[in-house]
């Protein structure tokens, strides 16, 4: 549909849908990003534990002996690696917002480790985030 009728095509203000990559995002990629969100939440919790741990020993030795901090960084590295594997196929605009689920896991998990509570605000927020991510996922199916 490109060459014969230039008049209409040329005046179209935006790219026609046929020009856009309407490729689907495979469930495998979505699943990998979901795993990323869990590892990412673990990373955030470990880094926060590590931040409380700081001060017991000075310098580089103190940094390395701070196991929650180190484990947190390892999780961040694993997270990035998994994200790259997930991004090999599928749409960035579908896969990237899924990472917002990290907020949900952190909100659910941090009362177990810190002086946090899961209050009504957080529960409403969790419902919105899960709803939003589900909507983006549903929109990727066509």
């Amino acid at each position, binding site marked *: 549909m490109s060459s014969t009728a230039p008049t209409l095509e040329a005046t179209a203000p935006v790219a026609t849908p046929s020009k856009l990559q309407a490729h689907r995002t495979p469930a495998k990629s979505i699943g990998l990003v979901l795993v990323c969100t869990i590892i990412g939440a673990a990373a955030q919790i470990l880094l926060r534990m590590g931040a409380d741990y700081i001060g017991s020993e000075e310098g580089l030795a103190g940094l390395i002996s701070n196991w929650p901090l180190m484990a947190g960084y390892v999780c961040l590295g694993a997270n990035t690696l998994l994200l790259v594997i997930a991004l090999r196929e599928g749409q*960035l*605009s*579908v896969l990237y917002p899924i990472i917002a689920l990290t907020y*949900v896991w952190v909100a659910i998990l941090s009362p177990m480790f810190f002086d946090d509570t899961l209050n009504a605000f957080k529960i409403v*927020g*969790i419902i919105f*985030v899960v709803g*939003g991510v589900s909507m983006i996922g549903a929109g990727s199916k066509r």
Partner: protein
Amino acid sequence: MTTPISSMLLVLLASVIGSVASVFLKAGANHLHRDKASLIRSGKRLSVGVVLFVVSSIFYVWGIKDGSLTVLYPLVSLGYVWTLVWSRLFFNEPINRQKIYGVGLVLVGVMFIAAGNK
């Protein structure tokens, strides 16, 4: 607790840099094959992506030093909006209604979670 404009700008900058990082990761992850040439090309893009993520987190930590997380936390999640724009610009991905509303719901959700963090 008042949040200084400078903190907001730093966190906003972190969100933009983080979203650009995701573009480089995607560009590196696309066409990631076993041959040497594509590994080198992908490797460069992935390295830029990782460096940008680190830079983004530096600005983020710098930004959240002062100010209320209730304000700053949702600003970070604006990165999802930028990513939507970059995905359209650089990868020709369609922006459909589900993506716009979905990201909108995510932003509202993050605002609530941040409000609950008091």
